[in-house]
């Protein structure tokens, strides 16, 4: 196949970028999207041009490194699929593909298709943990947890932190990301002691980072490669409103 790509090129954070058009010959339908970019890069280097920078690592859909907006859709729009698992057989010979980085105030572009997602780390640092000192743990079976709770907590815990939810949201909101962690920890008995403070701190950090607000549109969940549901956002809202009314205290 022959494919034309319009790729966002930007030298560094402070420079202005633009879309550049390239033709990629010899695209195999068995290539992943990133392998198509690899091929393009080899082609560029052969001509003495600087290759396109993009984040990627595990290339099996779990590390959350990769992610670009392909023809207007985060990760290309295939259900439950990260960019690295998207394959070229989903495209046709002669297709014209626009490739852009995640766009959000809280995800500044570093170079080409790479963005800085440090804001996600800072949201977790604000409270996305259970303070269990190493060595302080009781026996793992000491507290039975209803399977339903554990399963639902797992659903939230699956988040890979790729940022597709922010990229797809018309407001660049980080609610799905934040709610997935709040939901995961809040559904477990171990997470209860810090539950009120956790949600208050994480939401405050999320707002500080400059993400937009949630207008319950649902693009996030449609783009999420782990299909994390909007009900996590409702759960976050419930937790936050409750915690606020209680002044962040665990007792009434």
């Amino acid at each position, binding site marked *: 196949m022959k494919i034309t790509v*319009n790729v*966002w090129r930007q030298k560094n954070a402070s420079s202005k970028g633009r*879309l550049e058009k390239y033709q990629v010959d010899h695209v195999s339908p068995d290539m992943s999207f990133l392998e198509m970019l690899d091929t393009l890069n080899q082609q560029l280097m052969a001509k003495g041009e600087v290759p396109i920078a993009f984040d990627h690592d595990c290339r099996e859909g779990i590390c959350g490194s990769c992610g670009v*907006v392909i*023809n*207007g*859709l985060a990760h290309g*729009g295939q259900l439950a699929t990260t960019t690295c698992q998207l394959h070229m057989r989903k495209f046709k010979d002669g297709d014209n593909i*626009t490739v*852009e980085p995640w*766009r*959000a*105030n*809280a995800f500044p572009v570093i170079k080409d298709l790479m963005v800085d997602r440090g804001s996600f780390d800072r949201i977790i640092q604000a409270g996305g943990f259970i303070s269990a000192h190493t060595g302080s743990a009781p026996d793992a079976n000491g507290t039975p947890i209803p399977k339903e709770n554990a399963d639902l907590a797992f659903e939230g815990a699956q988040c890979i932190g790729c940022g597709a939810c922010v990229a*797809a*949201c*018309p*407001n*660049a*909101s980080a609610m799905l990301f934040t709610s997935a962690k709040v939901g995961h920890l809040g559904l477990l008995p171990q997470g209860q002691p810090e539950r009120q403070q956790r949600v*208050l701190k994480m*939401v*405050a950090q999320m*707002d500080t980072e*400059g*993400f*937009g*607000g*949630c*207008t*319950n*549109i*649902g*693009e996030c*969940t*449609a*783009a999420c490669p782990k299909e994390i*549901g*909007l*009900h996590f*956002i*409702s*759960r*976050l*809202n*419930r*937790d*936050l*409103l*409750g915690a*606020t*009314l209680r*002044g962040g205290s665990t007792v009434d």
Partner: protein
Amino acid sequence: MAAAMTLYRSTIGKKAIMAVTGVILYGFVIVHMIGNLKIFEGPKGFNEYSHFLRVVGEPALPAGTILWLIRIVLTVALILHVSAAIQLTRIDSAGRPVAYKKVKRKQASFASMTLRWGGTAIFFFVIYHLMHFTIGTVHPQFIEGEPYHNVVSGFQLQPLMAGVYLLAVAALGTHLYHGVWSATQTLGLNNRRNDKLFRGLAVLSGIGLFVGFAAIPVVVLLGIIK
């Protein structure tokens, strides 16, 4: 108070304010629509209902107390709803300073993407609507205390304005089609089991209110009500 301020400062808090005030306004439009439909009972029934609204609470309370209380609550709700919306819109557009060259949507409904535009349209319509039927300043034949006459003649004399009313209530229906569900989501009432119920309620509200409100200009224009 401290809790309220914290809440107000966060995006979710502002949204909660929008949700609560939205529910108040939603309650109002439902009652308003039911009241409007009394027009099918003829001039006597409709005018009596209108009069009732003005005297309700009397003589236990001074004249117009309840009416003004309702007006104050609604006005405060509207101001909070609109001001939170403006603040959130600013935050949201600051969330993405550089736009995508190419954008597609996978799931977003027309209603959810046009919530702000619809809301703005409804806001200006409400002002016009008050000047039209409550104060009467833009009504060519306004008669104080004769609402039946005002409604019927208002639409008969200015059929184009009846068209504007239809558009406005369509905007209202669309607004609620997403807004009602969105409010329950924002207030954290939704979960995996009841989500369909709230979605259903929102759809029903959107369609029901549109039909209920749109019925009046339509029947006037068709000459069913004179």
